[in-house]
Protein backbone atom coordinates (compact mmCIF):
# COMPACT_ATOMS: atom_id res chain seq x y z
CA UNK A 1 0.00 0.00 0.00
CA UNK A 2 1.64 3.22 -1.21
CA UNK A 3 0.31 6.49 0.11
CA UNK A 4 1.53 9.92 -0.92
CA UNK A 5 0.76 13.02 1.10
CA UNK A 6 1.32 16.27 -0.79
CA UNK A 7 0.87 20.00 -0.32
CA UNK A 8 2.75 23.16 0.61
CA UNK A 9 5.71 23.01 2.94
CA UNK A 10 4.60 23.93 6.42
CA UNK A 11 1.13 22.38 6.15
CA UNK A 12 2.09 19.36 8.18
CA UNK A 13 2.43 17.08 5.18
CA UNK A 14 5.50 15.33 6.52
CA UNK A 15 4.03 14.93 9.97
CA UNK A 16 0.96 13.23 8.53
CA UNK A 17 3.11 10.69 6.78
CA UNK A 18 5.28 10.04 9.77
CA UNK A 19 2.29 9.59 12.04
CA UNK A 20 0.72 7.24 9.59
CA UNK A 21 3.84 5.22 9.09
CA UNK A 22 4.49 4.80 12.79
CA UNK A 23 0.85 3.89 13.30
CA UNK A 24 1.30 1.11 10.75
CA UNK A 25 4.22 -0.22 12.73
CA UNK A 26 2.27 -0.03 15.97
CA UNK A 27 -0.32 -2.03 14.07
CA UNK A 28 2.32 -4.69 13.40
CA UNK A 29 2.89 -3.87 9.79
CA UNK A 30 6.04 -2.83 8.01
CA UNK A 31 6.35 0.77 6.94
CA UNK A 32 8.79 3.06 5.22
CA UNK A 33 8.45 6.79 5.01
CA UNK A 34 10.30 9.15 2.68
CA UNK A 35 9.90 12.83 1.97
CA UNK A 36 11.10 15.63 -0.26
CA UNK A 37 14.08 17.75 0.67
CA UNK A 38 15.65 21.00 -0.40
CA UNK A 39 13.87 23.87 -2.02
CA UNK A 40 11.03 21.67 -3.21
CA UNK A 41 10.32 20.98 0.44
CA UNK A 42 9.86 24.71 0.92
CA UNK A 43 7.97 25.29 -2.30
CA UNK A 44 4.46 24.45 -3.31
CA UNK A 45 4.77 20.76 -4.02
CA UNK A 46 6.17 19.03 -1.00
CA UNK A 47 5.54 15.32 -0.70
CA UNK A 48 5.73 12.55 1.86
CA UNK A 49 5.44 8.92 0.86
CA UNK A 50 4.51 6.04 3.09
CA UNK A 51 4.75 2.43 2.06
CA UNK A 52 2.86 -0.02 4.23
CA UNK A 53 3.13 -3.77 3.82
CA UNK A 54 2.59 -6.87 5.86
CA UNK A 55 5.84 -8.37 4.59
CA UNK A 56 9.37 -6.99 4.50
CA UNK A 57 9.67 -4.07 2.11
CA UNK A 58 12.15 -4.66 -0.68
CA UNK A 59 10.80 -2.03 -3.02
CA UNK A 60 11.99 1.39 -1.94
CA UNK A 61 10.32 3.43 -4.66
CA UNK A 62 6.56 3.25 -4.88
CA UNK A 63 6.10 2.47 -8.55
CA UNK A 64 2.68 4.08 -8.27
CA UNK A 65 0.53 5.37 -5.47
CA UNK A 66 -2.55 3.59 -4.26
CA UNK A 67 -3.60 6.70 -2.45
CA UNK A 68 -2.83 10.34 -3.13
CA UNK A 69 -3.62 13.04 -0.60
CA UNK A 70 -3.51 16.56 -1.99
CA UNK A 71 -3.39 19.74 0.04
CA UNK A 72 -2.45 22.24 -2.66
CA UNK A 73 -3.19 22.83 -6.27
CA UNK A 74 0.42 22.78 -7.45
CA UNK A 75 1.02 19.56 -5.56
CA UNK A 76 -2.05 17.97 -7.06
CA UNK A 77 -1.01 18.95 -10.55
CA UNK A 78 2.50 17.70 -10.05
CA UNK A 79 1.65 14.35 -8.52
CA UNK A 80 -1.74 13.34 -9.92
CA UNK A 81 -0.08 11.19 -12.52
CA UNK A 82 1.51 9.08 -9.81
CA UNK A 83 -1.84 7.65 -8.80
CA UNK A 84 -2.32 4.12 -10.12
CA UNK A 85 -5.37 2.98 -11.99
CA UNK A 86 -8.05 2.33 -9.39
CA UNK A 87 -6.16 4.47 -6.91
CA UNK A 88 -7.95 6.75 -4.48
CA UNK A 89 -7.60 10.50 -4.36
CA UNK A 90 -8.18 12.44 -1.15
CA UNK A 91 -8.07 16.20 -1.24
CA UNK A 92 -8.96 19.31 0.62
CA UNK A 93 -11.71 20.93 -1.35
CA UNK A 94 -10.80 24.32 0.06
CA UNK A 95 -7.41 24.21 -1.58
CA UNK A 96 -7.64 21.90 -4.54
CA UNK A 97 -9.78 21.88 -7.61
CA UNK A 98 -9.53 18.52 -9.36
CA UNK A 99 -11.56 19.51 -12.38
CA UNK A 100 -12.24 16.39 -14.47
CA UNK A 101 -9.64 14.15 -12.90
CA UNK A 102 -10.55 10.53 -13.51
CA UNK A 103 -10.16 8.66 -10.23
CA UNK A 104 -12.17 7.60 -7.25
CA UNK A 105 -11.96 10.80 -5.21
CA UNK A 106 -12.93 11.87 -1.77
CA UNK A 107 -12.79 15.40 -0.56
CA UNK A 108 -13.48 17.23 2.61
CA UNK A 109 -13.13 20.88 3.30
CA UNK A 110 -10.49 20.09 5.89
CA UNK A 111 -8.89 23.49 6.22
CA UNK A 112 -12.18 25.19 6.70
CA UNK A 113 -13.32 22.66 9.26
CA UNK A 114 -10.02 22.89 11.11
CA UNK A 115 -10.26 26.63 11.29
CA UNK A 116 -13.85 26.58 12.38
CA UNK A 117 -13.59 23.77 14.88
CA UNK A 118 -10.14 24.37 16.33
CA UNK A 119 -9.26 27.91 15.31
CA UNK A 120 -6.15 26.66 13.45
CA UNK A 121 -5.77 25.54 9.85
CA UNK A 122 -2.96 23.30 10.96
CA UNK A 123 -5.31 20.58 12.13
CA UNK A 124 -6.58 20.04 8.59
CA UNK A 125 -4.08 17.28 8.05
CA UNK A 126 -5.07 15.26 11.06
CA UNK A 127 -8.71 15.60 10.11
CA UNK A 128 -7.80 14.28 6.70
CA UNK A 129 -5.93 11.38 8.27
CA UNK A 130 -9.04 10.40 10.18
CA UNK A 131 -11.15 10.68 7.08
CA UNK A 132 -8.70 8.73 4.96
CA UNK A 133 -8.31 5.91 7.40
CA UNK A 134 -12.01 5.65 7.99
CA UNK A 135 -12.56 5.35 4.25
CA UNK A 136 -9.80 2.81 3.74
CA UNK A 137 -9.42 1.02 7.07
CA UNK A 138 -5.72 0.52 6.42
CA UNK A 139 -4.70 0.84 10.03
CA UNK A 140 -6.32 0.22 13.35
CA UNK A 141 -7.47 3.70 14.49
CA UNK A 142 -6.15 3.09 17.97
CA UNK A 143 -2.66 2.72 16.57
CA UNK A 144 -3.07 6.04 14.83
CA UNK A 145 -4.18 7.69 18.02
CA UNK A 146 -1.16 6.30 19.80
CA UNK A 147 1.06 7.53 17.00
CA UNK A 148 -0.47 11.00 17.16
CA UNK A 149 0.19 11.15 20.88
CA UNK A 150 3.77 10.11 20.24
CA UNK A 151 4.49 12.80 17.70
CA UNK A 152 2.59 15.91 18.70
CA UNK A 153 3.60 17.97 21.74
CA UNK A 154 1.55 16.77 24.66
CA UNK A 155 -0.30 20.02 25.12
CA UNK A 156 -1.75 19.67 21.64
CA UNK A 157 -2.36 15.94 21.81
CA UNK A 158 -5.97 16.02 22.85
CA UNK A 159 -6.98 18.53 20.23
CA UNK A 160 -5.26 16.45 17.60
CA UNK A 161 -7.07 13.33 18.70
CA UNK A 162 -10.29 15.25 18.51
CA UNK A 163 -9.43 16.38 15.02
CA UNK A 164 -8.62 12.82 14.06
CA UNK A 165 -11.91 11.55 15.38
CA UNK A 166 -13.75 14.33 13.66
CA UNK A 167 -12.14 13.28 10.42
CA UNK A 168 -13.18 9.68 10.95
CA UNK A 169 -16.76 10.77 11.41
CA UNK A 170 -16.75 12.60 8.10
CA UNK A 171 -16.69 9.23 6.43
Amino acid at each position, binding site marked *: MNIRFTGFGGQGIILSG*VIYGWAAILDNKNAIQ*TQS*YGSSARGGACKCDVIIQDSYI*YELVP*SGNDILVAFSQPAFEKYKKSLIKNGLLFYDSDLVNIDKFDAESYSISATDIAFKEFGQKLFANIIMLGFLNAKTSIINPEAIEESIRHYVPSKFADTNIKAFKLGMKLN
Partner: protein
Amino acid sequence: MTRENYLNKLKNQTRFIQGDEAAAYGALYAGCNFFAGYPITPASEVAELMAKELPKTGGYYIQMEDEIASMGALIGAAWSGGKSMTATSGPGFSLMQENIGYACMTETPCVIVNVQRSGPSTGQATMGAQGDMLQARWGTHGDHEMIALSPSSVQESFDLMIEAFNLSEKFRNPVIFLLDGEVGHIREKVVFPDVSELNIYPRNISKVKTDVFGGARIPPMIEFGMGHRIHVTGSTHKSNGMRDVVSLEAHDTLIRRLNDKIESCRNEIARYKEHFTDDMEYLVVSYGASARPSMGAVLKLREKGFRIGFLRLITIWPFASTIVKELGKKANKIFVPEMNLGQISREIERFVSCDVLPVSKIGGVPHTINEIAEYIEKIIVLK
Protein backbone atom coordinates in the same frame (compact mmCIF):
# COMPACT_ATOMS: atom_id res chain seq x y z
CA MET B 1 26.78 7.50 34.84
CA THR B 2 24.58 9.65 32.66
CA ARG B 3 25.34 7.60 29.60
CA GLU B 4 24.10 4.40 31.19
CA ASN B 5 20.93 6.09 32.40
CA TYR B 6 20.37 7.41 28.95
CA LEU B 7 20.82 4.05 27.26
CA ASN B 8 18.69 2.31 29.86
CA LYS B 9 15.84 4.58 28.98
CA LEU B 10 16.17 3.62 25.33
CA LYS B 11 16.40 -0.09 26.04
CA ASN B 12 13.89 -2.18 24.09
CA GLN B 13 12.17 0.88 22.75
CA THR B 14 10.94 0.87 19.19
CA ARG B 15 11.25 3.95 17.04
CA PHE B 16 10.28 5.05 13.57
CA ILE B 17 13.38 6.95 12.56
CA GLN B 18 15.65 7.75 9.66
CA GLY B 19 18.76 5.82 8.77
CA ASP B 20 20.79 8.92 9.65
CA GLU B 21 19.24 9.02 13.08
CA ALA B 22 19.70 5.31 13.60
CA ALA B 23 23.39 5.70 12.80
CA ALA B 24 23.63 8.42 15.43
CA TYR B 25 21.87 6.27 18.02
CA GLY B 26 24.14 3.39 17.11
CA ALA B 27 27.11 5.64 17.80
CA LEU B 28 25.73 6.55 21.21
CA TYR B 29 25.37 2.87 22.01
CA ALA B 30 28.91 2.24 20.81
CA GLY B 31 30.19 4.80 23.25
CA CYS B 32 30.73 7.74 20.93
CA ASN B 33 31.40 10.76 23.10
CA PHE B 34 32.66 13.24 20.55
CA PHE B 35 31.13 14.46 17.34
CA ALA B 36 32.55 17.20 15.14
CA GLY B 37 30.82 18.06 11.92
CA TYR B 38 29.65 20.51 9.36
CA PRO B 39 26.11 20.54 7.95
CA ILE B 40 25.42 18.97 4.59
CA THR B 41 22.46 17.34 2.96
CA PRO B 42 21.67 14.45 3.38
CA ALA B 43 23.86 13.95 6.46
CA SER B 44 22.81 16.88 8.64
CA GLU B 45 20.31 14.75 10.53
CA VAL B 46 23.16 12.74 12.03
CA ALA B 47 24.70 15.94 13.40
CA GLU B 48 21.40 17.32 14.57
CA LEU B 49 20.60 14.24 16.55
CA MET B 50 24.07 14.14 18.04
CA ALA B 51 23.83 17.82 18.99
CA LYS B 52 20.66 17.03 20.88
CA GLU B 53 21.54 13.71 22.47
CA LEU B 54 25.30 13.74 23.07
CA PRO B 55 25.17 16.23 25.95
CA LYS B 56 22.70 13.95 27.70
CA THR B 57 25.27 11.18 27.68
CA GLY B 58 28.14 13.38 28.79
CA GLY B 59 29.58 13.65 25.32
CA TYR B 60 30.44 16.69 23.22
CA TYR B 61 29.08 17.95 19.97
CA ILE B 62 30.90 20.67 18.11
CA GLN B 63 30.23 22.19 14.76
CA MET B 64 33.44 23.18 13.06
CA GLU B 65 34.09 25.75 10.36
CA ASP B 66 34.39 23.08 7.67
CA GLU B 67 34.84 19.38 7.09
CA ILE B 68 38.62 19.57 7.16
CA ALA B 69 38.49 21.00 10.65
CA SER B 70 35.86 18.45 11.67
CA MET B 71 38.09 15.61 10.66
CA GLY B 72 41.01 17.25 12.45
CA ALA B 73 39.05 17.74 15.66
CA LEU B 74 37.94 14.12 15.45
CA ILE B 75 41.51 12.91 15.48
CA GLY B 76 42.56 15.30 18.23
CA ALA B 77 39.66 14.09 20.33
CA ALA B 78 40.44 10.45 19.63
CA TRP B 79 43.95 10.82 21.01
CA SER B 80 42.48 12.54 24.03
CA GLY B 81 40.20 9.71 25.00
CA GLY B 82 37.33 10.37 22.62
CA LYS B 83 35.38 7.85 20.64
CA SER B 84 34.76 10.18 17.84
CA MET B 85 32.59 10.45 14.78
CA THR B 86 31.67 12.83 12.01
CA ALA B 87 29.04 12.73 9.29
CA THR B 88 29.16 14.28 5.87
CA SER B 89 28.35 13.72 2.23
CA GLY B 90 30.34 13.76 -1.03
CA PRO B 91 31.70 17.33 -1.12
CA GLY B 92 32.62 17.22 2.55
CA PHE B 93 34.00 13.72 2.21
CA SER B 94 36.31 14.91 -0.55
CA LEU B 95 37.54 17.70 1.67
CA MET B 96 38.23 15.28 4.50
CA GLN B 97 40.53 13.09 2.46
CA GLU B 98 43.80 14.59 3.58
CA ASN B 99 42.97 14.16 7.24
CA ILE B 100 41.47 10.72 6.69
CA GLY B 101 44.90 9.74 5.41
CA TYR B 102 46.36 11.23 8.57
CA ALA B 103 44.04 9.05 10.63
CA CYS B 104 45.19 5.97 8.71
CA MET B 105 48.83 6.91 9.16
CA THR B 106 48.49 7.59 12.87
CA GLU B 107 46.21 4.60 13.41
CA THR B 108 43.53 6.75 14.96
CA PRO B 109 40.21 5.05 15.63
CA CYS B 110 37.27 7.15 14.43
CA VAL B 111 34.15 6.77 12.35
CA ILE B 112 33.30 8.85 9.29
CA VAL B 113 29.74 8.67 8.05
CA ASN B 114 29.35 9.46 4.38
CA VAL B 115 25.69 9.70 3.47
CA GLN B 116 26.15 9.51 -0.26
CA ARG B 117 24.32 11.84 -2.60
CA SER B 118 24.37 12.26 -6.37
CA GLY B 119 27.75 13.51 -7.50
CA PRO B 120 30.23 14.42 -8.74
CA SER B 121 30.56 17.91 -7.27
CA THR B 122 27.39 19.37 -5.77
CA GLY B 123 25.39 17.25 -8.21
CA GLN B 124 21.92 16.68 -6.85
CA ALA B 125 22.19 17.31 -3.14
CA THR B 126 18.90 15.80 -2.11
CA MET B 127 19.15 12.66 -4.21
CA GLY B 128 20.72 9.52 -2.80
CA ALA B 129 23.55 7.65 -4.51
CA GLN B 130 26.29 5.08 -4.09
CA GLY B 131 28.86 7.04 -6.01
CA ASP B 132 31.64 7.20 -3.44
CA MET B 133 32.33 3.48 -3.00
CA LEU B 134 35.76 3.65 -4.60
CA GLN B 135 36.55 7.07 -3.22
CA ALA B 136 36.11 5.56 0.23
CA ARG B 137 38.93 3.19 -0.68
CA TRP B 138 41.23 5.46 -2.67
CA GLY B 139 40.30 9.03 -1.82
CA THR B 140 43.43 9.91 0.10
CA HIS B 141 46.93 9.82 -1.31
CA GLY B 142 49.42 7.05 -0.70
CA ASP B 143 49.04 3.36 -0.07
CA HIS B 144 46.57 2.63 2.68
CA GLU B 145 43.88 0.16 3.54
CA MET B 146 40.39 1.12 4.57
CA ILE B 147 37.44 -0.33 6.38
CA ALA B 148 34.01 0.60 5.04
CA LEU B 149 30.55 -0.69 5.84
CA SER B 150 27.24 -0.18 4.10
CA PRO B 151 23.87 -0.90 5.70
CA SER B 152 20.71 -1.75 3.78
CA SER B 153 18.09 -0.77 6.30
CA VAL B 154 17.51 1.60 9.15
CA GLN B 155 17.85 -1.17 11.72
CA GLU B 156 21.10 -2.23 10.12
CA SER B 157 22.29 1.35 10.16
CA PHE B 158 21.96 1.20 13.92
CA ASP B 159 23.46 -2.26 14.35
CA LEU B 160 26.32 -1.76 11.96
CA MET B 161 27.36 1.51 13.52
CA ILE B 162 28.25 -0.36 16.67
CA GLU B 163 30.32 -2.70 14.53
CA ALA B 164 31.92 0.32 12.87
CA PHE B 165 33.16 1.65 16.18
CA ASN B 166 34.31 -1.79 17.24
CA LEU B 167 36.31 -2.31 14.06
CA SER B 168 37.80 1.12 14.31
CA GLU B 169 38.97 0.42 17.87
CA LYS B 170 40.13 -3.07 17.14
CA PHE B 171 42.11 -2.21 14.03
CA ARG B 172 43.02 1.33 14.99
CA ASN B 173 41.85 2.56 11.64
CA PRO B 174 39.25 5.06 10.52
CA VAL B 175 36.05 3.34 9.46
CA ILE B 176 33.92 4.79 6.69
CA PHE B 177 30.22 4.30 7.20
CA LEU B 178 28.86 4.32 3.68
CA LEU B 179 25.22 5.11 4.08
CA ASP B 180 23.50 5.98 0.87
CA GLY B 181 21.14 8.95 0.86
CA GLU B 182 18.29 6.52 0.44
CA VAL B 183 18.89 4.48 3.58
CA GLY B 184 19.95 7.66 5.37
CA HIS B 185 16.68 9.39 4.75
CA ILE B 186 14.00 6.73 4.89
CA ARG B 187 12.20 6.19 8.13
CA GLU B 188 11.80 2.62 9.29
CA LYS B 189 11.32 0.75 12.48
CA VAL B 190 14.26 0.34 14.79
CA VAL B 191 14.36 -1.61 18.02
CA PHE B 192 16.96 -0.43 20.49
CA PRO B 193 18.78 -3.25 22.28
CA ASP B 194 19.99 -3.58 25.82
CA VAL B 195 23.46 -2.11 25.78
CA SER B 196 24.68 -4.61 28.32
CA GLU B 197 24.02 -7.39 25.87
CA LEU B 198 26.17 -5.84 23.17
CA ASN B 199 29.85 -6.38 22.58
CA ILE B 200 31.48 -3.00 22.77
CA TYR B 201 35.13 -3.27 21.89
CA PRO B 202 37.06 -1.25 24.44
CA ARG B 203 39.96 0.90 23.41
CA ASN B 204 43.20 -0.93 23.86
CA ILE B 205 45.10 1.46 26.10
CA SER B 206 48.44 0.62 27.55
CA LYS B 207 48.90 1.90 31.07
CA VAL B 208 52.63 1.64 30.91
CA LYS B 209 54.81 3.46 28.46
CA THR B 210 55.16 1.38 25.33
CA ASP B 211 55.54 1.68 21.58
CA VAL B 212 52.30 2.98 20.18
CA PHE B 213 53.24 2.67 16.54
CA GLY B 214 54.87 -0.69 16.25
CA GLY B 215 56.04 -3.73 18.08
CA ALA B 216 52.78 -5.49 17.33
CA ARG B 217 50.68 -5.67 14.22
CA ILE B 218 48.13 -3.57 16.04
CA PRO B 219 49.88 -1.81 18.90
CA PRO B 220 47.98 -0.52 21.92
CA MET B 221 47.28 3.18 22.25
CA ILE B 222 48.30 5.65 24.88
CA GLU B 223 46.09 8.61 25.51
CA PHE B 224 47.32 12.17 25.79
CA GLY B 225 47.71 13.26 29.36
CA MET B 226 48.87 9.95 30.78
CA GLY B 227 52.36 11.29 31.28
CA HIS B 228 54.05 9.20 28.62
CA ARG B 229 54.76 12.11 26.30
CA ILE B 230 53.85 10.31 23.15
CA HIS B 231 54.57 11.66 19.73
CA VAL B 232 51.94 11.37 17.03
CA THR B 233 52.76 12.35 13.47
CA GLY B 234 51.41 11.77 9.97
CA SER B 235 54.95 11.68 8.71
CA THR B 236 56.72 8.37 8.53
CA HIS B 237 57.68 7.31 12.03
CA LYS B 238 59.36 4.62 13.99
CA SER B 239 57.49 2.42 16.40
CA ASN B 240 57.99 4.95 19.19
CA GLY B 241 56.35 7.61 17.08
CA MET B 242 59.47 9.58 16.28
CA ARG B 243 59.68 10.88 12.76
CA ASP B 244 61.97 9.20 10.26
CA VAL B 245 61.47 10.88 6.94
CA VAL B 246 64.47 9.54 5.10
CA SER B 247 64.93 5.86 5.64
CA LEU B 248 63.33 3.43 3.28
CA GLU B 249 63.16 0.83 6.02
CA ALA B 250 61.10 3.01 8.34
CA HIS B 251 58.60 3.72 5.60
CA ASP B 252 58.44 0.19 4.33
CA THR B 253 58.00 -1.25 7.81
CA LEU B 254 55.29 1.19 8.80
CA ILE B 255 53.26 1.21 5.61
CA ARG B 256 53.37 -2.53 5.09
CA ARG B 257 52.26 -3.11 8.67
CA LEU B 258 49.41 -0.64 8.30
CA ASN B 259 48.23 -2.38 5.18
CA ASP B 260 48.84 -5.80 6.54
CA LYS B 261 46.85 -5.34 9.71
CA ILE B 262 43.70 -4.96 7.62
CA GLU B 263 44.58 -7.17 4.68
CA SER B 264 45.51 -10.11 6.87
CA CYS B 265 42.14 -9.92 8.60
CA ARG B 266 40.15 -9.47 5.43
CA ASN B 267 38.01 -12.52 6.09
CA GLU B 268 37.40 -11.58 9.66
CA ILE B 269 36.24 -8.09 8.78
CA ALA B 270 34.34 -8.88 5.61
CA ARG B 271 30.66 -9.36 6.44
CA TYR B 272 28.06 -10.38 3.91
CA LYS B 273 24.82 -12.35 3.54
CA GLU B 274 24.36 -15.18 1.06
CA HIS B 275 21.01 -16.31 -0.26
CA PHE B 276 20.22 -19.17 -2.62
CA THR B 277 23.81 -19.64 -3.64
CA ASP B 278 23.75 -23.41 -3.34
CA ASP B 279 22.02 -24.15 -6.58
CA MET B 280 22.74 -20.96 -8.40
CA GLU B 281 23.67 -20.51 -12.01
CA TYR B 282 23.65 -16.75 -11.81
CA LEU B 283 24.57 -14.42 -9.03
CA VAL B 284 23.40 -10.98 -8.00
CA VAL B 285 25.74 -8.95 -5.81
CA SER B 286 24.56 -5.75 -4.21
CA TYR B 287 24.72 -3.67 -1.04
CA GLY B 288 23.12 -0.71 0.69
CA ALA B 289 19.80 0.55 -0.60
CA SER B 290 20.12 -1.25 -3.91
CA ALA B 291 20.40 -4.58 -2.14
CA ARG B 292 16.72 -4.36 -1.28
CA PRO B 293 15.19 -4.26 -4.76
CA SER B 294 17.98 -6.66 -5.75
CA MET B 295 16.80 -9.20 -3.22
CA GLY B 296 13.24 -8.52 -4.34
CA ALA B 297 14.27 -9.22 -7.90
CA VAL B 298 16.06 -12.43 -6.93
CA LEU B 299 12.97 -13.65 -5.12
CA LYS B 300 10.88 -12.84 -8.13
CA LEU B 301 13.22 -14.55 -10.57
CA ARG B 302 13.44 -17.62 -8.41
CA GLU B 303 9.67 -17.80 -8.38
CA LYS B 304 9.91 -17.88 -12.13
CA GLY B 305 12.30 -20.80 -11.80
CA PHE B 306 15.64 -19.13 -12.46
CA ARG B 307 18.51 -20.55 -10.46
CA ILE B 308 19.81 -17.28 -9.19
CA GLY B 309 21.66 -16.50 -5.99
CA PHE B 310 22.23 -13.34 -4.06
CA LEU B 311 25.20 -11.96 -2.19
CA ARG B 312 24.69 -8.87 -0.12
CA LEU B 313 27.89 -7.11 0.86
CA ILE B 314 27.79 -5.50 4.27
CA THR B 315 31.49 -4.82 4.53
CA ILE B 316 32.61 -3.03 1.40
CA TRP B 317 36.29 -2.64 2.32
CA PRO B 318 38.29 -4.74 2.80
CA PHE B 319 36.53 -6.39 -0.07
CA ALA B 320 34.94 -9.79 0.52
CA SER B 321 37.15 -11.31 -2.12
CA THR B 322 37.15 -14.82 -0.71
CA ILE B 323 33.44 -15.37 -1.04
CA VAL B 324 33.28 -13.48 -4.33
CA LYS B 325 36.04 -15.65 -5.77
CA GLU B 326 34.30 -18.76 -4.56
CA LEU B 327 30.86 -17.81 -5.84
CA GLY B 328 32.44 -16.48 -9.02
CA LYS B 329 33.51 -19.99 -9.84
CA LYS B 330 29.94 -21.23 -9.63
CA ALA B 331 28.24 -18.39 -11.46
CA ASN B 332 27.83 -18.00 -15.20
CA LYS B 333 27.21 -14.34 -14.84
CA ILE B 334 27.25 -11.88 -12.02
CA PHE B 335 24.83 -8.97 -11.96
CA VAL B 336 25.66 -5.98 -9.81
CA PRO B 337 22.86 -3.50 -9.21
CA GLU B 338 24.42 -0.27 -7.95
CA MET B 339 23.40 3.36 -7.76
CA ASN B 340 26.51 4.35 -9.68
CA LEU B 341 28.11 3.57 -13.01
CA GLY B 342 29.52 0.27 -11.82
CA GLN B 343 32.05 0.77 -9.06
CA ILE B 344 31.87 -2.42 -7.02
CA SER B 345 31.39 -4.42 -10.19
CA ARG B 346 34.92 -3.33 -11.15
CA GLU B 347 36.26 -4.77 -7.95
CA ILE B 348 34.41 -8.01 -8.55
CA GLU B 349 36.02 -8.30 -11.99
CA ARG B 350 39.37 -8.65 -10.29
CA PHE B 351 38.35 -11.91 -8.65
CA VAL B 352 36.19 -13.77 -11.13
CA SER B 353 36.51 -14.82 -14.69
CA CYS B 354 32.83 -14.95 -15.58
CA ASP B 355 31.01 -11.92 -16.98
CA VAL B 356 30.31 -9.17 -14.50
CA LEU B 357 27.40 -7.01 -15.54
CA PRO B 358 26.76 -3.73 -13.77
CA VAL B 359 23.10 -2.85 -13.38
CA SER B 360 23.67 0.84 -13.01
CA LYS B 361 21.15 3.44 -12.08
CA ILE B 362 22.02 7.01 -11.27
CA GLY B 363 19.97 10.10 -10.60
CA GLY B 364 18.80 9.51 -7.08
CA VAL B 365 15.97 7.03 -7.50
CA PRO B 366 16.68 3.47 -6.35
CA HIS B 367 16.15 0.59 -8.73
CA THR B 368 12.76 -1.00 -8.73
CA ILE B 369 12.46 -4.74 -8.40
CA ASN B 370 11.14 -4.93 -11.92
CA GLU B 371 13.95 -2.94 -13.44
CA ILE B 372 16.46 -5.36 -12.02
CA ALA B 373 14.47 -8.50 -12.66
CA GLU B 374 13.67 -7.60 -16.24
CA TYR B 375 17.22 -6.64 -17.05
CA ILE B 376 18.53 -9.90 -15.68
CA GLU B 377 15.85 -12.03 -17.24
CA LYS B 378 16.43 -10.54 -20.64
CA ILE B 379 20.10 -11.34 -20.51
CA ILE B 380 19.68 -14.81 -19.12
CA VAL B 381 17.03 -15.76 -21.59
CA LEU B 382 18.85 -14.29 -24.56
CA LYS B 383 21.98 -16.09 -23.68
